[in-house]
């Protein structure tokens, strides 16, 4: 088996491989979690991959110790375990010194949906954004995943890269996306802006297509780095259209919705804004991402509806209700 060019996890490990080849002091610690990429690294660099055991608190403390000794340390594990379980270690051992400890974490959003709340990556952004100096990368495709790992390495401080389990068609063309900007426009548009992150970027692109068929021109922006933010760039994004909708596969509080609101609320001339996100709940039972998209309106249709609603509001009834029905139909056809 070899690494899949579309799988963000494989892409991340390809980037780690690049770093390993260039820097003999780079290491990887796992919490006894496997991956094809781990096996490959292990085979080539048996000394530099350490299974630190099912003990995430110590794993992060050890990573900090190694980083204090001049090493870049990657960590690998499931997002929810590698954030909530070792949260104080991230804050005190890693962030107080801005150490190069880079978490490569599997399970962003509901990619482990049916595995229940212990595996959901939908409540971590609030805690992560509260960690001073922690860079937060949330790639929606393999290209950004790979570039994000390299950028996190080059930037040299603490970082986490949230990875999805799914391997979609790439949404980015690296000739146009500048990784250091932390965001990229994936589709131009003048009526409304959809800011999305992670898996939701693909839904946002779909929504924009649906809207286009109705004559509405929606811009799609992928905010693939949630910290640090290039404030100038983001303010620009928020100023360009009268309507902004955000969408994310994450609980409403703490993630993209909060991040954008924090900026919009202080603007002199804010756009009309609506945030689409999961509810602030723990999701018990069997949760699939398809079901969640419907229930919480974060699928393409939900996004398109939200854009229409806001446009109606800003144009004071300028949109015919027929448009909404048309979107519903176009989705059934597509």
């Amino acid at each position: 088996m070899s690494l899949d060019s579309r799988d963000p996890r494989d892409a991340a490990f390809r980037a780690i491989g690049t770093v390993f080849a260039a820097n003999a002091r780079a290491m990887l610690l796992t919490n006894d979690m496997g991956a094809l990429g781990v096996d490959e690294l292990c085979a080539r660099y048996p000394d530099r991959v350490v299974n630190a055991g099912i003990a995430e608190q110590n794993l992060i403390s050890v990573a900090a110790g190694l980083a204090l000794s001049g090493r870049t340390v990657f960590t690998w594990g499931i997002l929810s375990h590698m954030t909530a379980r070792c949260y104080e270690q991230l804050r005190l051992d890693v962030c107080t010194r801005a150490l190069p400890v880079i978490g490569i974490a599997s399970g962003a959003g509901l990619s482990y949906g049916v595995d229940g709340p212990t595996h959901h990556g939908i409540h971590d952004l609030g805690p992560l954004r509260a960690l001073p100096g922690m860079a937060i990368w949330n790639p929606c495709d393999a290209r950004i995943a790979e570039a994000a790992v390299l950028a996190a390495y080059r930037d040299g401080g603490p970082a986490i890269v949230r990875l999805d389990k799914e391997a979609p068609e790439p949404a980015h063309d690296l000739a146009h996306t500048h990784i250091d900007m932390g965001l990229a426009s994936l589709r131009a548009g003048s009526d409304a802006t959809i800011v999305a992150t992670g898996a939701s970027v693909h839904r946002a692109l779909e929504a924009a297509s649906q809207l286009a068929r109705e004559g509405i021109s929606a811009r799609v922006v992928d905010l693939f780095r949630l910290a640090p933010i290039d404030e100038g760039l983001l303010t620009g994004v928020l100023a360009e259209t009268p309507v902004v909708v955000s969408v994310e596969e994450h609980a409403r509080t703490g993630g993209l919705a909060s991040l954008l609101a924090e900026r919009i609320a202080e603007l002199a001339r804010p756009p009309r804004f609506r945030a689409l996100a999961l509810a602030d709940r723990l999701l018990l039972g069997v949760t699939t991402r398809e079901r969640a998209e419907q229930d919480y309106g974060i699928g393409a249709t939900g996004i398109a509806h939200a854009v229409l609603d806001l446009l109606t509001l800003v144009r004071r009834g300028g949109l015919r209700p027929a448009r909404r029905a048309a979107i519903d139909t176009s989705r059934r056809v597509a």
Partner: protein
Amino acid sequence: MIAWSPATVASGRRSLDATAAWVRRAALEMALAGGKGHLAPAWSWVEIGVALYHGGVLRHRPSEPLWAGRDRFLLSKGHGCLTLYAILADRGFFPRNALARFVQPDGFLPGHPDPLIPGVEIVSGSLGHGLGVGAGLALAARRDRSDALTVVLLGDGECQEGSVAEAACFAAQHGLDHLVAIVDRNRLGSTARTADVMSHATTRARWESAGFEVRELNGHSFPALLGTLSDVRQRCFGQPLVLLADTVKGRGVSFMEDSPLWHHRLPRDEEIELARAELGGGPAAAFLTTFSDSPGVPPEVAP
């Protein structure tokens, strides 16, 4: 191999061995139907689970899952839930036909247990939570002058978690003698042998030093399990008990036994029929009739 057939399951009168065999096969069919699941971790503790639920160890009322007099069972290694689901369904906590909808959106059995499922006490799936919650339950039971047991099943890899060490010291300090930890000691974690990762985390000495009474046994032997567990409700010397149960991860299908490869992998193609053949229970269609049966055991079981 044990002689058993779907019919012995439907009858509700069958040996523990036959029940264990059914549970293993049920786990396989659930995982195949759902397209995912941790089979090897589930098979590792089948006899332990069957001994607890079918062997008369745990007080429980399938028709009344929240019965106040019940013993508490916590599957701390939540990823081993295929076995738990099969056992609970078999006892009658919910219909067996729910098993066919493991990880299906129209079912209620996710990839890790949660308390929406009748008979499940806690959310688990993040390792290292069960013993602490169990210590709280056991402390409460003692204060309520109940002789209820709190039984927590842990993985041996899971014992690397510091939270388990904290809980162990706490339980010993408070003399929680009706708390029983059972370690499914299959010597494997997810990707490696535990000896190669943290060899000192699951030893007899470590549990002894934490203040536990330690009993080591063969975790696949019903006589050993039932013998070792026979006095658990009577124990009253103020010491919690741990069973270090030696097990084989993937037990039941030769090519899946004792190999890190199979922690989360499912059999594919020909492997599927090989696995079915080794587990017994006949062709898929015949076996799946056991999922449509109503529960085969009387609703109330008090040892």
